């Protein structure tokens, strides 16, 4: 049976999901095609819109007032403030109750797992009590066997940044008889299901055991931060139970992979896609495409289903396959390319021009991606649209380094919103 949609979105990360929701909002029938697990498990789950610009020395306190300073080829300049707001609106609707920050245009400052403070626009509600501009005293708790995070070191580093509150750290043993190298998923699972754990010679439900372990270190702290492993499906209950036992606010500090806030966000996005009637095909890669006789209009993309090549037809297509990490952009010793449509990816022929010698320098590779116009349409080297009915969203778009700017999620939201809307309206 032939697959025929109005809009096909390729890629299931933030950009692809928002693009699909945005297109569905216009009344279009949308299919989202994903290959591998999305890179959200690597992502902190914070939604950064714009944290740093070339012109400003410190963190940006209001992303919207800093937009004017961006170069004209920046995706934000191309799609405009309204697309950023449109993307955020969809995001806020989808994550209602699970995320905070929508009450203001200002950036919030959060503590990262590495101890550095970072500006962000939306943060999981589980992280809300940890804002650095809030002056309540803070205790940061780490677990001795969790090598990724050291609560005492993070507390010292926050103090060194001059935060407007008293902050102390503690490193405690994980309650229960876990091996020293037990994965964080086991701990999160025990808290999620409130499993019985042995603690100080007693058997206690996991949440109570953790609260007991933290209590001796509480001192005068008004809030307690822990690495983001407080449960999975029942994370709100875990946090509420801990708060009840401790009598103070509890917040999570976003971590690297596997990132629970990232995974929880992925669940929210996929629930919203289901609710919006978006069809989802997962597990198979897009490997090619067919065009109409004009060579300019895409008719179908080709999906490889275990060796069988199946065409998926649509009127409009959105490329949201991500950047280098998600393999939406690929490379070999000779060059950089976009593997599905072979869209133009500007890069130097000399691969020794792809990087800066400073590990945190201005890396050209961090800007690799397709150039777009104001309609999110990928452009050829000559500045013409690659295909009349193809748009791009998120990390596959190049030209800026959203990692350095802290604009990665925001670019995904804004371009996802704009690409989805324009694709839907073109039907």
């Amino acid at each position, binding site marked *: 049976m032939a697959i025929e949609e109005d809009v096909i979105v390729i890629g299931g990360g933030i950009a692809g999901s928002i693009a699909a929701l945005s297109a569905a909002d216009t009344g279009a029938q949308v299919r989202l095609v994903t290959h591998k697990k999305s890179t959200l498990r690597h992502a902190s789950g914070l939604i950064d819109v714009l944290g740093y610009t070339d012109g400003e020395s410190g963190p940006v306190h209001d992303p919207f007032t800093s937009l004017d300073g961006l170069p004209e080829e920046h995706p934000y300049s191309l799609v405009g403030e309204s697309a950023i707001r449109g993307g955020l609106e969809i995001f806020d609707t989808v994550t209602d109750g699970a995320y905070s920050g929508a009450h203001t245009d200002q950036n919030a*400052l959060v503590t990262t797992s590495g101890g550095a403070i970072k500006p962000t626009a939306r943060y999981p509600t589980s992280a809300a009590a940890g804002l650095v501009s809030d002056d309540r005293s803070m205790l940061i708790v780490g677990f001795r066997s969790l090598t990724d995070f050291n609560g005492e070191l993070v507390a010292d580093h926050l103090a060194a940044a001059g935060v407007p509150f008293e902050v102390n750290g503690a490193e405690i043993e994980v309650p229960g008889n876990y091996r020293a190298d037990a994965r964080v998923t086991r701990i999160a699972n025990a808290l999620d299901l409130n499993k019985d754990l042995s603690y100080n010679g007693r058997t206690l439900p996991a949440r109570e055991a953790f609260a007991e372990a933290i209590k001796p270190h509480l001192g005068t702290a008004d809030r307690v931060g822990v690495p983001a492993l407080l449960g999975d499906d029942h994370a709100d209950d875990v946090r509420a139970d801990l708060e009840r036992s401790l009598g103070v606010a509890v917040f999570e500090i976003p971590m690297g992979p596997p990132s629970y806030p990232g995974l929880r966000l992925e669940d929210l996005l996929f629930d919203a896609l289901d609710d919006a009637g978006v069809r989802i095909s997962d597990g198979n890669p897009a490997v090619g495409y067919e065009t109409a006789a004009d060579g300019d209009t895409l008719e179908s993309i080709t999906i490889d289903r275990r060796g069988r090549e199946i065409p998926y037809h649509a009127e409009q297509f959105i490329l949201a396959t991500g950047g280098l990490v998600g393999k939406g952009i690929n490379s070999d010793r000779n060059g950089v390319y976009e593997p599905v449509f072979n869209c133009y990816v500007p890069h130097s022929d000399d691969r020794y021009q792809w990087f800066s010698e400073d590990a945190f320098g201005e890396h050209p590779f961090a800007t690799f991606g397709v150039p777009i116009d104001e309609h999110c349409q990928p452009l050829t080297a000559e500045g013409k649209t690659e295909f009349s009915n193809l748009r791009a969203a998120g990390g596959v778009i190049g030209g800026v380094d959203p990692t350095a700017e802290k604009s990665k999620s925001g670019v995904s939201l804004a371009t996802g919103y704009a690409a989805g809307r324009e694709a839907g309206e073109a039907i």
Partner: protein
Amino acid sequence: MTDAPHVLVIGGGSTGCGIARDLAMRGLEVTLVEKGNLTHGTTGRMHGLLHSGGRYAVSDQASAKECIEENRVLREIASHCVEMTGGLFVQRPEDPDEYFEEKLEGCRECGIPAEVLSPEEAREMEPYLAKDIKRAIKVPDGAIDPFRLCVANAASAQEHGARIETHAEVIDVLVEDGAVVGVEIKHDTGPGKRVHREPGSTEKIHADHVVSATGAWAGKIGDMAGVDVEVRPSKGVMTIMNTRQVDTVVNRCRPKGDADIVVPHETTCILGTTDIEVDDPDDYPEEEWEVDMMIDTLSELVPMLANARTIRSFWGVRPLYEPPGTGTTDPTNITRDFFLLDHEDRDGLSGMTSIVGGKFTTYRMMGEKISDHVCEKFDIDAECRTADEPLPGSHDFSILRDYMDEFGLRSPIGRRSVERLGSRAEEVLKTGEPNPVVCECEAVTRAEIQDAIDQSGSDLNAVRIRTRASMGNCQGAFCCHRMAHELYPTYDEPVAYEAFDELFQERWKGERHALWGEQLSQAMLKYSLHSTTMNADHDAVRTGSAIDFSKFDSGQTTAVAGTAGTETAATDGGLPPANGGDQ
């Protein structure tokens, strides 16, 4: 001990550490100074081949004989640093038959066990060899960890009373009345173990004799003493693969050439190399074509290398030397033999000896000859014991035990830890504390990291070379910060962050030579994790910038869940919330 002459050894590579151990074991007072970490110069930048001597069996039989002799010694005294992989000299159809025969004959003349294998037999050993190879010679080549070996020599020297000062650069050679009487050094921090942010100092160390074991840098030390030492530094590239495409050392069996060896090393393979003379061992170009040549040429032997993932490349500088007037133009023709330069005989400057040239595999023998020479100067009659006494970690360790249970470690982590630590395993791993894994790629646990920190201070590159942490596929993406966490609270917060930054930048130096395909994707993930997730690139503490906290969102009114009446008032719009939410 106080009556024993004091010998100062310059250079913490394999040769310097070997000399320090030998002299200390003979009862001399020894100080070793090294400008960087141990292995900082050439030792830390080689392919890790334990020569059978096969490579020199045609061109330089004297070296070949020394190699097979020392190969046998190191298997005994450095068992925890050696993996006897075996080696193959593989002939392709276009490679000359005469050379193959000469190689075989040469091996036999030098006492190197050598066996001819048919292509089928060779491919049975190494299935990924090219299908069209003609035949191969099997020899006892091996892989050796130069870091572990060097550190073990230094540790042994310390056990015998030597003082080892790393990050202590020689800034002057002290000459009085036509004799060298010591050196002046600049401690980066300290003296003692390197600790970031501790102030450095200078120190004049007087000695009865100075030995310069500085390899490619011998000319610079010579200049300070006022003597000419004409080293001919020659660079070579080594490219590290993400996995072991071969488990045997694979050599190309043809007259000298670039890109003719693959050495399996721990979890990786190392491809080598080039041979290009350079003017300055500290400043030479690291070139793209060299990396490409490794992959393109060696894939003639092992075709899968063409599309395999490389994780980094690095360059080393050979300390080649030839006596003045020899005039060899092609560096590949310069002898690999070593030379002992007695500056008293040679330049009329007493009190100093330089050692130049030579090879890693024969470091112990070089150490023995130098130590004999020094002892002769002081009329000391002491036997060399370095060939008989195992290095720390290589003591008898043949009893099979269940380390997984004993140290609470999962296999293969326990197995790899014990392989690295050898007879030190129990001492290091039995801490009585939880021992989580810090580096997953290389299976390095907290106990090993802490042991290395005890030895070397806050220098995480010194921890790296001792443990292999951050040397695997992810190149430290997931463990550089974990290693820094382990410094705390022994060292404070500013030290831990500075040490992290230094390690992170050091890893990048090699990674950037492997930035395409899978490894570019990996590099982007690393950059994202540290920049987006952790914001290390814009950390206000590290950039020294002040943040106006009042300009940012301080949260909206929220309640502590489930606690009726426990209101944490936080106002909207930038005003700080009332302090103290709970009753």
